């Protein structure tokens, strides 16, 4: 598998150097792997810190900036970051108003953020945590580690970030983040496996003419393998899987997300099918975002995330945001 890299060992550090070069509005600590918005800590503002394994870009570093995250902590590829990173990030962004950790629900992320929360609180930073677990492909039961955090993370970070920028106190930012998570559901489909730089070969073997339904964002195989489906059939399957669990009673925000290697041309075509299915099911769509936002390296495929949004969430979604990957209103 060919990659545009130097050596596997330095991909994350190299990317951080490149991020720093492109974005002078970010403070990028390459050695300690923390990305902080330059104006942090903002007086009186709750800090928002997220992080996770690398390989999902632009998540999370691409979402650092006014209106969204205060800081991000990238781990090795597909490996959650270590507690030292989150502790450092929390210290850098805390203005005294406390810090919310946005944690995707994976065992590694949960354990490391938990340890970091303890350590940061020892250092006097007030910490709240929200777990993002929006992936309906995983049953949330005693028999699993619980639903995974995928596309819903973008909604949590954007909307809680807007609340924090408006000056909401920590408990309020936390409760909004929880509300967004509870309002989000996702389902993902892979047309090809991805290849991590360290492994150098695809994480699973997907024969021509087959796809994986219910994949996560770490190159894990999905829930089920099927013969190739059309864009319309995939939209039917994915949207129905989401709606079955979400049962929205009002308008939704939609994220039609590429896994990394699916051309935008295909993704927009898929968006047409997603909108068709939603119209058929009587679900109004308030806003739609189409693009590669929560990716899985060079995986071909897509995911659909729907977020039921009341007027307040919609207002916060529309609020200005200025980050590398998401930008409007300013």
């Amino acid at each position: 598998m060919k990659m545009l890299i130097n050596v596997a060992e330095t991909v994350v550090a190299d990317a951080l150097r490149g991020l720093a070069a492109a974005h002078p509005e970010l403070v990028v600590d390459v050695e300690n792997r923390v990305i902080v918005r330059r104006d942090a800590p903002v007086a009186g503002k709750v800090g928002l810190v997220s992080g996770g394994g690398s390989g999902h870009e632009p998540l999370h570093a691409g979402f650092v900036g006014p209106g969204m995250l205060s800081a991000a902590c990238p781990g090795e590829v597909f490996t959650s970051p270590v507690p030292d990173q989150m502790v450092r990030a929390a210290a850098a962004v805390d203005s005294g108003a406390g810090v919310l950790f946005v944690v995707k629900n994976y065992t590694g992320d949960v354990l490391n953020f938990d340890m970091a929360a303890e350590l940061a609180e020892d250092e006097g930073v007030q910490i709240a945590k929200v777990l993002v677990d929006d992936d309906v492909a995983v049953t949330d039961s005693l028999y699993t580690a619980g639903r995974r955090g995928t596309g819903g993370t973008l909604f949590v970070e954007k909307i809680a970030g807007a609340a924090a920028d408006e000056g909401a106190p920590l408990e309020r930012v936390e409760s909004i983040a929880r509300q967004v998570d509870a309002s989000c559901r996702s389902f993902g489909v892979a047309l090809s496996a991805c290849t991590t730089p360290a492994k150098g070969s695809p994480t699973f073997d997907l024969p021509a003419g087959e796809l994986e339904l219910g994949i996560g964002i770490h190159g894990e195989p999905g829930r089920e393998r099927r013969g190739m489906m059309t864009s319309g059939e995939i939209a039917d399957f994915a949207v129905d899987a989401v709606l079955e669990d979400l049962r929205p009673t009002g308008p939704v925000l939609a994220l039609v997300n590429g896994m990394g290697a699916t051309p935008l041309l295909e993704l927009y075509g898929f968006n047409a099918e997603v909108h068709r299915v939603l119209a058929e099911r009587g679900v109004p769509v308030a806003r739609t975002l189409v693009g590669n936002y929560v990716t899985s390296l060079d995986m071909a495929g897509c995911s659909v995330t729907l977020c039921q949004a009341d007027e307040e969430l919609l207002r916060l979604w529309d609020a200005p945001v200025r980050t590398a990957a998401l930008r409007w209103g300013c």
Partner: protein
Amino acid sequence: MLDADFFRRWMVTAAAAVDREAGRLTELDSAIGDADHGINMRRGFQAVTQALEKEPPGTPGAVMVLAGRELISKVGGASGPLYGTLLRRTGKALGDAAEVTAEQLAGALRAGVDAVAALGGAAPGDKTMLDALVPAVGALGGPGSFGAAREAAAKGALDTVPLRARKGRASYLGERSIGHEDPGAASSALLVGALAQVAGA
């Protein structure tokens, strides 16, 4: 009696085993996880040996606490905090003694494994590292028991093959997790194997 050097050699031997078997561990993780377990373990144990070389701690407990801390701050993922906690808690249970008995090691390791279970919320049979660690500490006792612990860990790891995962990433696969060995159980068997090797068993 086991001194700090014994524990240091255990860690170095474990690091060598992990390095040698990293490819296999990653392959196992590729089948039911995210293809990084060998890479994670190698990165972690490299850091452990480096830290131990830099300023070798004077007691068994200090060796294990340092090793655990290194894993926590260098690995990430699920295995970083879990293995880090295993070693750190084992070290804490060993206390300040300059030398410990095999029985004391067995008891301390049991405390470490309990901490792993408490942190990760898993139980034997969930298809995790505990399926190798629990039988191993069960077999561990007096000086002659290291070989038995190695066998128990190896068997425990292999016995994860027919299990359906209930914790960690593999649990996402449901039925499809059956038929594969758990990577964390496999790496635990390596750690226990390294212990037996250093003990001359």
